[in-house]
């Protein structure tokens, strides 16, 4: 198993994932209109925007679910072409979805390794396809301890966990298997206030272990609690890039809705930087 610790970590501030001039049209609707995005090493970048601002299309482009009409995506400065959700995964990008992407009847260790099961060494594994359950269990235990994620037991069913812990399992899975970065699409949308707290802590731990996190969220308090930088989208473009210190929550919402101008060129302006 490869973890963030094993892979080379670029210096803090270096651009890990970049999207340039992304255009995506659905019929007459332009969802993304020359959108840019940069995720830097060691940061949590929050992507926010009103409904229809293009943030979910942007995420789909970055995680391979949608192929853009124009523009390019670069990973570590190298252009990449994602055409299916498996492509980013092969390159070490993991995505956490807002729906709880876990199998409730299966135990935690099984869920963590689902789709990436580890087989025994030797003939048992290669010929008889036997799973190395003990190894998966101990690895799962180790990773959960490192992530400081408290669980009753690695062998308990996911359905015995709270909603926050369940989503925590999905987040932990991404954190364990991602080598480059983690994309989190509304990870707390289905959770209550207290439950969100566990997930937010987990995201912070993942960042502190060296993985940059792209966080898409509607929830302003969560964004302001976690984000190092905030990327604000409006009408299919980035209109502002700020930090929780530069702007207040009210100002950010004003930029989001267009009540206040952002610090980039106005949407609809033809000039390209």
């Amino acid at each position: 198993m490869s973890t963030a610790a094993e892979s080379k970590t670029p210096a803090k501030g270096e651009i890990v994932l970049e999207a340039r001039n992304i255009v995506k049209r659905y019929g007459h609707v332009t969802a993304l209109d020359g959108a840019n995005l940069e995720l830097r090493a060691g940061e949590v970048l929050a992507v926010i925007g009103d409904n229809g601002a293009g943030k979910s299309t942007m995420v789909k482009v970055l995680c391979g679910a949608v192929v853009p009409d124009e523009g390019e995506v670069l990973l570590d400065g190298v252009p990449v072409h994602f055409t299916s959700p498996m492509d980013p995964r092969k390159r070490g990008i993991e995505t956490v979805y807002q729906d709880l992407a876990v199998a409730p009847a299966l135990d935690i260790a099984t869920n963590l390794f689902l789709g990436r099961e580890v087989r025994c060494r030797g003939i048992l594994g290669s010929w008889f396809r036997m799973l190395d359950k003990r190894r998966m269990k101990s690895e799962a235990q180790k990773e959960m301890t490192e992530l400081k994620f408290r669980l009753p037991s690695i062998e308990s069913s996911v359905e015995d966990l709270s909603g926050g812990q369940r989503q925590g399992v999905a987040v932990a899975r991404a954190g364990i298997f991602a080598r480059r970065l983690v994309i989190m699409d509304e990870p707390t949308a289905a959770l209550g206030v207290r439950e969100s707290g566990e997930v937010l802590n987990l995201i912070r731990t993942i960042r502190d272990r060296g993985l940059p996190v792209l966080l898409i969220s509607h929830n302003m308090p969560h964004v302001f609690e976690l984000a190092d930088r905030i990327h604000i989208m409006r009408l299919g473009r980035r209109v502002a890039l700020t930090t929780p210190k530069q702007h207040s929550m009210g100002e950010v919402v004003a930029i989001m809705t267009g009540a206040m101008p952002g610090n980039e060129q106005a949407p609809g302006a033809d000039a390209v930087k």
Partner: protein
Amino acid sequence: MPANGVASLNRGTVALGRAIATPAVGPLVVLVVFCAIFSLSTHTFLAVGNLSLVIQQSVIVGTLAIGQTLIILTAGIDLANGAIAVLGTIVAGRLVNDAHNPVLCLLLAIFLCTFVGLLSGLLVSRLMLPPFIVTLGLLGIVTASTRLIAQGGAFPVTDELLGWTGNSFIVDGSGVTYGMLIMFGLYALVWYLLTQTAWGRHVYAIGNNRLAARLVGIPVQNRLLSVYVFAAFLYGIGAWLALGRIPNADPNSLQNANLDSITAVVIGGTSLFGGRGSIWGTLVGTLIVSVLRNGLTLSGFDPLWQDLVTGVLVISAVAVDQISRGKQR
């Protein structure tokens, strides 16, 4: 921290609830209770010859129920498995009667059954048609094809190979047929696949939360296809066991086998909603039905009571599943 006490209490009740509801523990208790009742109420139930008979009577449905379990675990259902097995018996029976090579005939019959599984698997996995509809349609298609092939006749099995699964040897005074050994072997094989391989985990995950299975990168379509093909292969083996059990390939046989296989799976504690259950549960469920039919007959009840009690058991099993699922919400 007070929360810890609550958590451990919860864990205790949850563990207890799960022990009763999901694995084969609950059904096993039912099986033991039935055996105890019948051995007290009749003198003949515990006779070695009778126990062998109980297992022999469960061999065909027991094997069909293995395939049924796999399909139900993926949140599907198979309404055609009895019909597919009958197709196998008729094809093998007729071709051997026409003096073709028995080995080839048997292989062809099993292959044909597997091919039907390929069809249903493709329709379910690629066209995303509901398994209920696909197998309902196949039930009609396969039954009609079988009758067309049989041309109104039945085919007595005289060939040594076709009837081999009904041959027995004596262990401690009770007859053990090769068919029983094959069935137990298949249970062991499927237990291994379900619990010790990634394929098995994927089967559970697909039935439990298909979207999650897809999102974590499980090739859901291929896994589903493999389940339907493998299940139908087992039905082909079931056809061979049927030829050994009743040495006459008759298109009118095994009419109830399909519903009996679903009954066995459900009584064995596997959830019709998919993703939960065990293959041992199905074996126990098969034996429960067989013990029940045998015991009630020995006790002198009208055969109608067998169906009545089986019906009660099916509803109770589904109710237990539903209630235990409800508690987990």
